[in-house]
């Protein structure tokens, strides 16, 4: 009997707590997204080369009506704009290499959600081409922010008026790491960060065309043990080797190598 009682008390507390929590949430507004059919839209178009694939598009909405209480490091409460996010798969346009998604600017609902930012991009389709257990690493992403809030990966330093058209050169970077677990990955190296960040408050149309120069591959091998002098060895497509403490390939160097090679080839053609 005593044992039975002991087990019951916490259950009772938990049920009371559960009931309290549910009743509290029951009072709030319906926070779901409900974009109206006639909403203004932002079109995201991605031209995806054969060796790449489009990633799932992550869209974030914010509401100034539905806020939640956050706390500072010192425990002080303050209100923050509520957010919702949804994932959209971009759809292929016919048999073309254009993938498209339409994002309603107005998220609707009782909270009057507004489009806040979108994360999309490309990744390498077949990392296995570089060996078994090779994974896709990083690069080829784009974040476009439509308001003054941060995206899941922070803010953008480049502000664009009107529509956004991004044409970017990308190179393949095959990296091997030995410390901890052996890991080999294929990455896309572009001129920006692994995610290019833009602020485009008035954009209606966003076009992203990654141009993959897949014949120019930079290989790197990380150190075997960690020291202050440990360097990652980068082998660039022209055979030059850099061991200077870089942890990512130098995009400008890759561009220079490609341009030089193309110039040489043009010379050879004209001769």
């Amino acid at each position, binding site marked *: 009997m005593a044992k039975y009682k002991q087990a019951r008390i916490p259950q009772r507390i938990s049920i009371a707590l559960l009931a309290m929590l549910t009743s509290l949430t029951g009072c709030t507004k319906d926070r779901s997204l409900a974009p109206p059919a006639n909403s203004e839209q932002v079109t995201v178009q991605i031209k995806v080369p054969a060796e790449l694939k489009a990633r799932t598009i992550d869209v974030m909405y914010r509401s100034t009506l539905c806020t939640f209480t*956050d706390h500072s490091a010192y425990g002080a*409460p303050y209100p923050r704009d509520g957010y919702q996010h949804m994932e959209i798969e971009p759809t292929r346009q016919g048999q073309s290499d254009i993938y498209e998604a339409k994002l309603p600017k107005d998220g609707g609902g009782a909270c009057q959600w507004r489009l806040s930012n979108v994360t999309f991009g490309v990744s390498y389709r077949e990392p296995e081409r570089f060996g078994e257990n090779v*994974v896709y690493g*990083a690069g080829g992403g784009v974040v476009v922010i439509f308001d003054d809030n941060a995206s899941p990966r*922070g803010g953008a330093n480049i502000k664009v008026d009107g529509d956004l058209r991004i044409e970017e050169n990308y190179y393949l970077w095959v990296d091997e790491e030995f410390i901890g677990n052996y*890991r080999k*990955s294929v990455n896309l190296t572009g001129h920006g960060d692994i995610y290019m960040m833009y602020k485009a408050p008035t954009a209606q149309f966003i076009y992203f065309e990654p141009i993959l120069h897949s014949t120019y591959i930079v290989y790197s091998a990380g150190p075997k043990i960690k020291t202050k002098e440990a360097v990652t060895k980068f082998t660039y497509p022209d055979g030059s080797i850099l061991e200077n403490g870089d942890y990512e390939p130098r995009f400008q160097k890759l561009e220079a190598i490609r341009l030089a090679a193309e110039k040489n080839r043009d010379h050879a053609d004209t001769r």
Partner: protein
Amino acid sequence: MDKSDRMHRTDTLCPNKDVLCRPQIKHWLEVQLVDEHGEALPYLPYRAQNDATREGVVPEYRGQTDADGVIRIEGLHPIPITLFIDADPLAEVLQTRRLRARRAEPKRPIIGNPTPLHSPQRTGYSPVEARAIAAGHDYHHVRIGQLCDRLPRLDPPLPEGEPLPPYHFPDSRFSGYTLGSEVGYRQAYKRLDRRHVLEVCPFRTWSLVLHHQRDYSLVTAYNLGLMSVLAYSTHEPGQYGSVQEFFEQQCLDLSRAPRVRDGYTNPPCVVVDVPFSERYTIAKPLDTTKGEPPEGDTQLFYAINASQVLVGWRGTEMNFPFADLATDVTFRPVKPEVQANCEPKVPCADLTPRGNVHLGFRDAYDVARRKFAEDLGDRVEVAARRRDLFICGHSLGGALGLIHAASLKDLNPLLYTYGMPRTFTLQAVACLDDMWHFRHVNDTDLIPEVPPEADLENSLYKLYGPLGTTLGTTWSVAQLMADLVIRGKDPFYHHGEIVAFHRTEQHMRIRGSENQFYKMREGSGAPYYTVISRPLPAKAKLFLVPTLSKEDDEKARAAQERYTASLSPDHKDKYFPKGRNVKRGNLLGIRNHFMGKYQPYIYGQLVESINPSRMQERQNDRRKLNDQMVKYAELIPEDELVRDRLFLELQSLVGLTLECTRQIEGGRDALERFEAVAEDNLYVEITHG
């Protein structure tokens, strides 16, 4: 006009009039380029232009500074002259020059104050200025971007398409430095025929002072505490106080020490100047935005410069007392089979070979690890192959930081946590024994007491089956309140070396009564009849770093010899049991939990340790405690007396951890600079609970 003066007449009919006078007076100019220590910037190629050279009347002035950094130009027209220095040689030499420790530190303009963020330096701060004025020269404080003719080549380059860092490059058109522009065009001669001393701010950037070492460092604790506060930042990007603004703007702004905007006092960081090429090139705040807290939102940031990789994890809702602890209070230990550090396809070892990790924390970590695999997996790990890896966090952030550190233990992470809950179980902690971790606990903070030290998996959750995680939470809280410890095989356990902020109280025992009736009972095995315990008035909060007592550092040993008592292994185990807290946390202790209770205390200790003549209040508390121990030596229980003597001794050792800061290049300057900006009354330090 005198009519008889036929030589001078204004006439519309004959406008060309020969005027007889001597040739125009030509002027000379000397410019001396020096750094902030008054050292010359020699052999730098320059160009100088004025309207005469632009019109082709005279060729452009070219040359290079001499060994004393002096440029001398003669034969100048009395008009303003603009000086350009070749960007690359200038940047190269300026990167190697050091900043002065004491700087003008203008107040940051608040909203509504039209003062620009970067104005010319106030007078009275530069010894170079005083010397120049005393020698009768003109003095100017300039930055590289005001002198160089274009953007110098930088490695790594500045991000393309973004505005230039406004402190070093205030002028995006690189229009050179014009002497005589501040006076009227026809008065430029007033600025000529003299030497101008140009004090050029070195081309440097701020780097947080962090020591990657096994030993405790007060400066590291202070800076990483601030980084744990920064991890909470939700300021809009680009705004003062956001993570990106801190690293991308404040750390490139040499006019002020970077400050973490905490909403109250905005304390300054301890920073050292490093060449501009070693700046923080990447700083990213990451937010899983999976759901509004407390449903599993995880926030963190990381920043990378030439020598550091820094990761700060944010804590969750820690509202009084438990309403929002959903993430924290899901007390179910699960096997730490980590996914943590690898893609699903690649086989990988577990976080720890044995033991369990808290389910709620692991889930929160995994959400971030999956969503930001490119940042946490690729970039942070690859960058940490040669850089020092620092991880920090407050509260839940500490737990997530510990899991993160465990997943990167091959990269030798250094972890500083503040008020973190128990995360791993005993067996798992045992496998992470050689990982560097300093765990700060503020007196009776409650959070380090959760989850309770018990094997909840065996004792509790089997009762509830699959609902255990949800309903068991309540059970655990109830248990926590009742402080009922359940015996088990693998209880939750703390990792790392404890650093305790310990509020020390003392008692005295006196005879309750002189009455013969009571005296007679002495020795009869009933002491409670005759002795009563009374608290003594002096109380002090002590900064206890138990690892310091085993410090074999030269200075620490010298200091320790001054004290008769030293912490023997027996004592150490007694007062600081491994993996446990010094004091029991209690419900009231939740108010000791926030960073607002940790950071002021570390701040006070740091200021006091740099300059013992400051922060007298906290020192007085300790003196009183010490006096009390002498005065009541007979009456204070032996145990308490021995303990508090050791604690006071430990407290006296904390300042010695500044030695490692003084030894690094620029370390002394960093401390001096911090001490100059640190205000005494920045915080109200609460010593008494």
